[in-house]
């Protein structure tokens, strides 16, 4: 397999991370802009790396755990870039890039054994999986933003303003960014889940609708809808909403790992 795109992706992400950190530490706008450009370059290279991996293994990216992780990393980067451009705020890039890098490296450093070709599930199924992973990526982003919110809020309340606090986004903006991210996740998971049901319905033979994955997905959907509702109210806006967002993400991680790997019959990677 050609290693040009994985190496280029890793380099672009790594450099972008370094520049975002420098931007956060020194506040140089030009450095931040270059960081964003490199993230864009990384995204393009990552896309081709995914494409190449899928072609090489004759499968789709989400057919195995490693491919899913890489796709997750790519969608996380895509969501973050969209959010950064929409809110014109790049100081959280230094916190998001490590996640993107870890998911990308973990997926691409793993042994790429030839997998059995996946069963042909059709376009609806492909959208179902991609949208679900996009939702997880958006929820992961809101998780990172909530952690930053709580950290910054604590520093502000304790009057411990270091250099970084002056460069982080205002609390109100972090809150808005987190809600934007959750909104992306909510829409994706709602549509993705609906498509999943449609896809299951079309499959020949008897399909169980009592897979634990369905229950936990509906729980995730309900919890994030609750977050979205509460985060808009004055009483919950702020630290309380951020804590709820962090709790919700714990359920997402549970859904993506324990439920997928051990409890679900149709969502496991083996």
């Amino acid at each position, binding site marked *: 397999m050609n290693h040009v795109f994985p190496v280029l992706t890793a380099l672009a992400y790594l450099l972008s991370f370094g520049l975002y950190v420098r931007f956060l530490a020194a506040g140089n706008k030009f450095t931040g802009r270059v960081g964003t450009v490199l993230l864009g370059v990384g995204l393009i290279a990552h896309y081709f790396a995914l494409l190449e991996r899928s072609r090489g293994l004759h499968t789709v990216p989400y057919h195995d755990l490693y491919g899913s992780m890489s796709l997750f990393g790519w969608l996380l980067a895509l969501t973050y870039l969209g959010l950064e451009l929409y809110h014109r705020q790049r100081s959280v890039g230094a916190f998001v890039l490590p996640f993107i890098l870890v998911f990308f490296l973990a997926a691409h450093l793993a042994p790429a054994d030839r997998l059995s070709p996946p069963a042909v599930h059709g376009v609806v199924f492909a959208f179902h999986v991609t949208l679900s992973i996009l939702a997880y990526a958006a929820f992961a982003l809101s998780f990172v933003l909530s952690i930053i919110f709580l950290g910054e809020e604590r520093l502000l309340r304790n009057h411990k303003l270091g250099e970084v606090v002056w460069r982080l986004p*205002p609390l109100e903006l972090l809150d808005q960014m987190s809600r934007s991210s959750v909104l992306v996740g909510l829409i994706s998971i709602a549509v993705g889940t609906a498509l999943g049901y449609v896809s299951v319905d079309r499959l020949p033979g008897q399909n169980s609708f009592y897979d634990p994955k369905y229950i936990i997905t509906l729980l995730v959907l309900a919890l994030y809808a609750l977050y979205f509702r509460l985060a808009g109210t004055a009483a919950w806006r702020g*630290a309380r909403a951020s804590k709820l967002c962090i709790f919700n993400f714990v359920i997402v991680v549970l859904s993506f790992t324990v439920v997928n790997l051990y409890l679900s019959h149709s969502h496991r990677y083996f």
Partner: protein
Amino acid sequence: MEIVLVGLNHRTAPVEVRERVSFSEEQAQRAAEELRARGILEETLVLSTCNRSEVYGVPPESSHECAPGLSSFLSEFHSVRHEVLSVSLYHHYDREAVRHLFQVAAGLDSMLLGEAEILGQVREAYRFAHEHGATGPVLNRLFQGALEVGKRVRTETELGTRPMSAAAAGVKLAERIFGKLSERKALVLGAGEMSEQVLSHLRDRGIAQLQVMNRSREKAEELAKQFGGKVVGWGEWDSALQTPDVVVGSVSAEEPVLRRDIVERAMAARGNRALFLMDLGVPRNIDAKVAELYNVYVYNTDDLTEIVQQNRNARESEIPHAQGIVEEHVSKFLSWQASVELVGLVDALRTKLREERATFIRSRMEPMKHLSETDRAQVEKLMDEMLEKVLLEPAQRLRGEKELRRKIQNVEALRDLFLLNREKP
């Protein structure tokens, strides 16, 4: 093509002298005209702010020679005795003058390190002088460079980003919580000088609504009117605390005026919407226990003073970075200046050689009567070609090679070497 600067600032002159030597726009124009009319300077620019009065110029002769005349002119123009003025004046020439201006534009020479206003003042002084025809190619280039330095220092360093007063730090902190203040409301308790300062900062940051509460309603009304705000009756806490996002305490009171129970009630009424309390009063206006409430952020004078101190240190740590930008542009300007001077020198040399050639041909061809007109013309043409060839390559190299221009430091020495100064009008 030298540059001279004569001036004074907050470091060299007390305010009594500074205010006597400051220039209004009309005075700046008149001074520039007189300086040129008297032949002291060919290009002139007066930069006058509350902390400095400086005259930049390009003298017709040596800058060192024109400086005393410039000092005397300032003394005469402002009717200040020369002995009084001379102790406060500084004189900078060429590289030092360029460096000084670039440092001024960068905010490195300001009383409040990194302040942003000076760049606007430099821009305005340049615009004014340029519009009135007082500047020429050298000062145009110099001041364009200064504006570029100022802009770069502000975008590439953090020299001017941190607030340097408790009031400004408080307003900046409010922005850390709420973001832009254009949709936020503020309530200011007190109508003294500190309240006025905070109101001014809040207004500058585009706050949507301002309210003033004071024991003396009259004073509150006066202040509210000045800042386009509203007056709230003293002690009407329940209604007054419902809408504002920022509350500033700056009243003289023995006991805290905002107790925990008052703020707790207000927070319940406002659905725990975030509240930023800036306590600038001594003794404190806000009960310390208020900080324990959910979504309430309290900063008192000591907290804000500490932030200002941190900011001062942060600004100072940016000096080397800003100085680096200044030095980069000083070199750039001097390189440009040298290139212009050297090109001028080559032109002067060419003119001189042509004159020499004419004299030479006249004297040496006199005995060669056997040559026809065509032959004579041919010899002259050959000599011209040779002169051009000798001069062309150095001229091209001077235009193209920055490093070479940097190496040739003293153009005047070259002028002396080729006896070109004698030709100067």
